[in-house]
């Protein structure tokens, strides 16, 4: 074992005095003095018979069983997952929020032969750039004010395991370069250190953003995309998974009724119709929350539409009005205008509101601000933002 190496964990077996083969996990770690001098190595041998029994159970629970799906899109993903698990290639998971990117990353880690190693998650969008750099790559004592001791960084913590980068699209450009260097030579340089550390880490990255578009806009490095994009898995949004919605509704219904000890028989036809027709922009996470809410609220035998979150039934009535309007013989120009308005985004609507208020107030800003219910400075700021000259 080389002197600079990080602690290493290996799986194997030994034969004991009773001639029984015992599965063990062996860890070698260098022991250093306070001044960093190598004193020796520590070897620990752990009997993993109990753990193996447990991991069998975990294996069953994880056998992509956390994913509830019957749709062909998801089945295709299930088929390739075991193969992906066995490789060391970087994985890029794309998909809308709430589609199960985290779950998938964990499932890949569990099916890989690194599953005894750590699974480290880092959310790239949650930390400011400087903090993120030290969090990922670590820092050397004295590298910056407040760096009172050496910090190993998530990459080194994930040695022999998997590092999962959430929202890779939010990673600042400077760090993208550093990540690129790591993906090339697998060496980590902590902040303020000239010495690199070799780490064996499998990278899984996830994002809900369109990275190709970000590359075109110059917000994401093309070469990093190519390196991450070795294996790409796209998780389809729930609205494209058709029959899975019913399956997930039933699954979460049973989970929550047994968890909360409720005696509810199921969904009423009306409630079910609303739930099946809903678009679920928040995907499985939203569906789960809706069911949790309904199970909590419902005091009757069946979940009725009034037990569902109000926004669902509102949309339902809105949809009905809209679909009804299509059949009516309303003047086409009016509906066109309405559709057009619905398509405008908030910024455009705000801009329109300001212009209308200014016209009404005949250009007087204070009156326009009063009409909008804003302060004068807010109006001034927004006008500047939208480039409106009164």
């Amino acid at each position, binding site marked *: 074992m080389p002197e600079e190496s990080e602690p290493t964990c290996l799986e194997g077996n030994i*034969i*004991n005095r*009773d001639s*029984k083969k015992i599965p063990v996990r062996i860890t070698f770690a260098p022991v250093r003095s306070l001044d960093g001098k190598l004193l020796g190595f520590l070897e620990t041998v752990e009997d993993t018979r109990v753990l193996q029994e447990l991991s069998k159970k975990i294996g069953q629970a994880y056998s992509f069983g956390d994913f509830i799906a019957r749709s062909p899109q998801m089945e295709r993903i299930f088929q390739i997952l075991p193969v992906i698990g066995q490789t060391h290639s970087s994985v890029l998971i794309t998909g809308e929020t709430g589609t199960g990117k985290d779950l998938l990353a964990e499932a890949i880690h569990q099916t890989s032969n690194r599953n005894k190693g750590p699974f480290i998650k880092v959310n790239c969008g949650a930390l400011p750039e400087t903090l993120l750099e030290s969090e990922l790559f670590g820092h050397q004592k004295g590298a910056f004010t407040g760096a009172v001791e050496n910090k190993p960084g998530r990459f080194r913590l994930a040695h022999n395991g998997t590092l999962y980068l959430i929202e890779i699209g939010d990673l600042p450009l400077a760090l993208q370069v550093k990540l690129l260097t790591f993906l090339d030579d697998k060496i980590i340089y902590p902040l303020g250190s000239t010495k690199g550390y070799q780490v064996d880490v499998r990278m899984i990255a996830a994002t809900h953003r369109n990275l190709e578009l970000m590359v075109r806009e110059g917000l994401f490095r093309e070469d990093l995309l190519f390196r991450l994009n070795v294996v790409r898995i796209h998780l389809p949004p729930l609205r494209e998974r058709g029959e899975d919605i019913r399956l997930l509704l039933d699954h979460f219904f049973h989970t929550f009724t047994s968890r909360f000890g409720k005696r509810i028989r199921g969904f009423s036809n009306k409630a079910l119709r609303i739930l099946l027709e809903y678009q679920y922009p928040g995907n499985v996470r939203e569906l789960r929350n809706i069911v949790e809410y309904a199970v909590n609220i419902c005091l009757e035998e069946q979940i009725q539409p009034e037990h569902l979150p109000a926004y669902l039934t509102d949309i339902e009535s809105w949809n009905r009005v809209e679909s009804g309007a299509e059949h009516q013989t309303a003047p086409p120009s009016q509906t066109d205008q309405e559709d057009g308005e619905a398509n405008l985004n908030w910024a455009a609507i705000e801009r329109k509101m300001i212009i209308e208020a200014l016209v009404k107030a005949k250009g007087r800003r204070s009156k326009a601000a009063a009409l909008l219910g804003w302060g004068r400075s807010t109006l001034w700021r927004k006008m500047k933002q939208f480039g409106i000259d009164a």
Partner: protein
Amino acid sequence: MTRKVLIPLYGNDVAPRFDLATEVLIVSIGADDVVEDERTVVLPHASAEDLCHLILTENIGVVICGGIEEEYYRYLKWKKVTVLDSVMGPFDRVLERFEEGRLREGNILF
């Protein structure tokens, strides 16, 4: 009467594992406890089955080894091979002690 002794080797020591040894020492010991012949056999790969096969074809009477799985231990015993297992140490010291008739299972000679 000549006795044949087989010791799985790891370098100059008795191999810690019977099933993982890729080298064995075969020693023929004459009636007056004098070594008549000594040779090393390098195996193409580590295999407890192949090693058992070699032990039988070579008419080995005694196997001195480190850890050995119960299955192979019992098999060799059934084939009337004496097995001294869980022995640790440099093979020459182990052999010396064996010739003196003082080697027991579980002896550590480091």
